[in-house]
């Protein structure tokens, strides 16, 4: 269902990015990169909202002709961006939310690995397979 999943560090560089049509990877790089503008804007708009009550899910960042870009930001300002095919109308907001939650949990597991250096690229196989499962699920 997702065509591209990206994890972006607090300093806005990618920790993990993977897309399904691998031949046009760069397009998704551009898409995710530009979506960060919206993420930044949304985060700054949230401003000083109570940290624990803040909604982590950012919702639709922006639609393009073929895709929809959704965002999610953790409390430590790590961003998850998911690109979804816009033809896939069956996908509801709630499902996107739950996918992000799954992603977040898996990311937390990665961070719990004592051998992972925060800030490095994520190379965890478990995380990778989880992302794969999210990508295949429907399409």
């Amino acid at each position, binding site marked *: 269902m997702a065509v591209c999943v990206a994890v972006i560090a607090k300093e806005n560089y990618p920790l993990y990015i993977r897309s399904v049509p691998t031949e046009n990877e760069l397009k998704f790089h551009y898409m995710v*990169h530009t979506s960060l*503008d919206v993420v930044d*804007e949304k985060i700054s708009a949230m401003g000083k909202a109570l940290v624990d009550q803040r909604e982590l899910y950012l919702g639709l960042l922006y639609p393009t002709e073929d895709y929809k870009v959704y965002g999610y930001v953790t409390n430590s300002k790590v961003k998850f961006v998911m690109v979804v095919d816009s033809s896939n109308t069956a996908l509801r907001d709630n499902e996107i939310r739950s996918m992000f939650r799954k992603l977040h949990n898996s990311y937390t597991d990665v961070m719990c690995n004592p051998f992972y250096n925060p800030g490095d690229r994520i190379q965890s196989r478990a995380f990778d397979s989880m992302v794969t499962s999210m990508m295949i699920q429907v399409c």
Partner: protein
Amino acid sequence: MSVPDYMQCAEDHQTLLVVVQPVGVVSEENFFRIYKRICSVSQISVRDSQRVLYIRYRHHYPPENNEWGDFQTHRKVVGLVTITDCCSAKDWPQTFEKFHMQKEIYGSTLYDSRLFVFGLQGEIAEQPRTDVAFYPSYEDCPGVEKRVEDFIESLFIVLESKRLDRATDKSGDKVPLLCVPFEKKDFVGLDTDSRHYKKRCQGRMRKHVGDLCLQAGMLQDSLVHYHMAVELLRAVNDFLWLGAALEGLCSASVIYHYPGGTGGKNGARRCPGGSLPAEAANRHRPGAQEVLIDPGALTTNGINPDTSAEIGRAKNCLSPEDIIDKYKEAISYYGKYKNAGVIELEACVKAVRVLAIQKRSMEASEFLQNAVYINLRQLSEEEKIQRYSVLSELYELIGFRRKSAFFKRVAAMQCVAPSIAEPGWRACYKLLLETLPGYSLSLDPQDFSKGTHRGWAAVQMRLLHELVYASRRMGNPALSVRHLSFLLQTMLDFLSDQEKKDVTQSLESYTSKCPGTMELITLPDGLSLPPVPLTKLPIVRHVKLLNLPASLRPQKMKSLLGQNVSAKSPFIYSPIIAHSRGEERSKKIDFQWVQGDVCEVQLMVYNPMPFELRVENMGLLTSGVEFESLPAALSLPAESGLYPVTLVGVPQTTGTISVNGYHTTVFGVFSDCLLDNLPGIKNNGSTVEVIPALPRLQISTSLPRSAHSLQPASGDEISTHVSVQLYNGETQQLVIKLENIGVEPLEKLEVTSKVLTSKEKLYGDFLSWKLEEALAQFPLQPGQVATLTVNIQVKLDFSCQENLLQDLSDDGISVSGFPLCSPFRQVVRPRVESKGANPPEGSKPGDPSHTKALEAILNFKYSGGPGHVEGYYRELSLGLRVEVEPSVFFTRVSTLPATSTRQCHLLLDVFNSTEHELSLSARGNEELILHAGECQRMAIQVDKFNFESFPESPGEKGQFATPKQLEEQRQEARGLEINSKLGIRWRIISFHGRGSRCPCSGFLTMEGTHEGSSAHKPHSNAPCNSPGSSVHCLALPVHWSLTPGR
């Protein structure tokens, strides 16, 4: 209407559009000079009223856009200024004709026009005309601005009359229907008498009046008119015009709220007197009242007859939030009409500008997103570029730098689209450069030196590739080399093996035309590209300055004690000084380099590339001292491990040199890599003192070199080793050639020797020389040779090994243990026991196991030239190994009384342990031939003497010595005395002719000790008769201790 004006902003609704155009042949330069002057008249306070008129000048305006002038009056060209060249009067009618033709283009909408004629003088110019102004030249036209002001005032008069004309239209009158070009055919055959139609006409007219009021500087009035128009048009569902009315409302409100303007650059002129919006509103009151009394108009707002008209007016104005809502509404209405795409697009742009001021980026991005999808007719490439650039600028405006960069890049790519006949690589390159900040990419490699690179590598790499390509197509290979080396340097970790190969190949092909330099490249637009040193090709891990080889290492002559300490502080110890010194030391290395001598720095490098890396011209970068770097070339295998590379150079002057880095040429790119900028480099100091030049000494000897190297105790390193084989007691001359191979004269030489600690007891002078002979040739100029002769003399005690000595008691001489000999015995005995496995008889003479080795070091300390003045010297060591073979032994010693009482016979049993026949002589006369392995007795007649008469050894030595040592000294001294008396010598006959061994060089020394006062006292002494010990034999007058002498 097809050409959008992306630069539009809300304030443009209040401007009058004036087109300034050249007619005939006017040079661009001259035209724009005048155009600029005309443009400076952009706002005018109209005579008596306080209203301000704003003018928008265009030098190009598509006539089809002019057709939309009724829809939004600011799109209507109301004034035309024509600029022309006219040199002679006869061209004048023609020129004037052209002016009229030009007027025709915008004829339907023009309020007024002017012609500025330059160059014409004479009677035509004298004629006063309102629509033509004559100026002698482009330089001499002081009245242009005034003329334009007059022109604008005339425009105002027309505008005002039109406004009043329309505003006072009574509702009962027939109102003409205003329409946009594409609507015209829709209204054919429509019932013009219907209420619906009338309302539509009224609404549109109201909106038009609103536009005129806005242009005429009557903001409040326009607001009222727009409100009315909105009501009217909403009722008849005339969406296009409803949208226009709403947009007008928004524009007027924006002008009210943001007097600073939303357009950005032209904002300054908007608020001339610094007047507040409220004041501005007050100013417009006179005009407003005119409208407010209009009975048919007021349906909703501001109608209250007397009470505060002010409040009503304030209400007319939209709040900032409402502005956006209305914009949204307007755009949604525009969106219903395909032909109004440009209007919709421009409305979006205007709304975005307003939102940018309101800092509501999210909503602005929505407007922009919408604008992206507005499909205009097929755009030309140029328009596409413009569109993307404007989108980029707008995104930039709302702080979406990444999005902005994205569109700018798209615009750049559009510049060189394959469909374009003449690709604009220059423009493409310029636009690409502007995208760099959006991709958080700086072109300074220093920014990447801190740890691993973090960023959008894939995207950044793409951009760099595009920069490389664009700069190459631009015909600037230096730029592409710079970008490509930057790509290689910063993105190395992200390149795949194949990409690495491709990048380096293209880099090599570029550099073949234009080698990469270390110079700053400054682009015409002011951006400068700092040089990119390829510090990762190869990666340097470790830098170590090497000391000079031991033989060339300079040494400081011992200065007065504590000299350097006293210079710094009166205290012997201070923790503060120690601390600061420690810091100094951290960078400074405690050895010196010498001027004019080759110095070395070792680097540990490795090649991260998947192929062989050729590094050329690798040398050192230094400062502080003039340094001649001798570059090296190396070739590193693919993905090599750490690889040591030694860079060399010669310091030409003295002082403190610091090694700052190294330079390389890789793939044709010159790089200066500074150590400070290298991450993860291990560097233990890079500063070394260079001392003045010293001479260099080379020594060669007459003896063969030895493979056997000495292991000196501490510190000393030996440059040359020689070895020689000698028989015990033999003397050999070692001729040492001293050659000055440096460039400085050799002035001083000191020679010292050091015998390495050996268990052997050595008698006599092992090495002796006469330095004076060599020094006589000093100072030694470069290339000159001096010789020094060193005598090697070996006298060792072999007796303990050879169990050949027998005691002499059978000769009737009583022999008893002699206490003085006990030290000898004690030392010797355990050795014998340890050698017990060696059967004494089995050991043949000359057996190698019998040889003993002596090792010594000759130290040459030399100095000269400027280094000598500074107090430095050099040390050269020569290792000497002497293998000593046993020669002659005394197996028995005894004495017999001689005929004279003053003399006695000394009987010696002599054994030849060599393989050669040798002759033996004592006191120079009695010669005895001994065959190999033969033992014979010889008798020597000697004078008796008493050791009591023998002088004591110098007292001062004795003071420090133990009694035992004292006794040994005395024993030695006596031994020497006896030796000199006996003078026993041997020589190997067969060597006689060869001369390699001096025939008389063999010394056999006898050592004697004496006990008791009487020389004649028998039985008083005894040799130690224990086997294997050195024999102390008792002679009548003396007590002999027979050992090969010291």
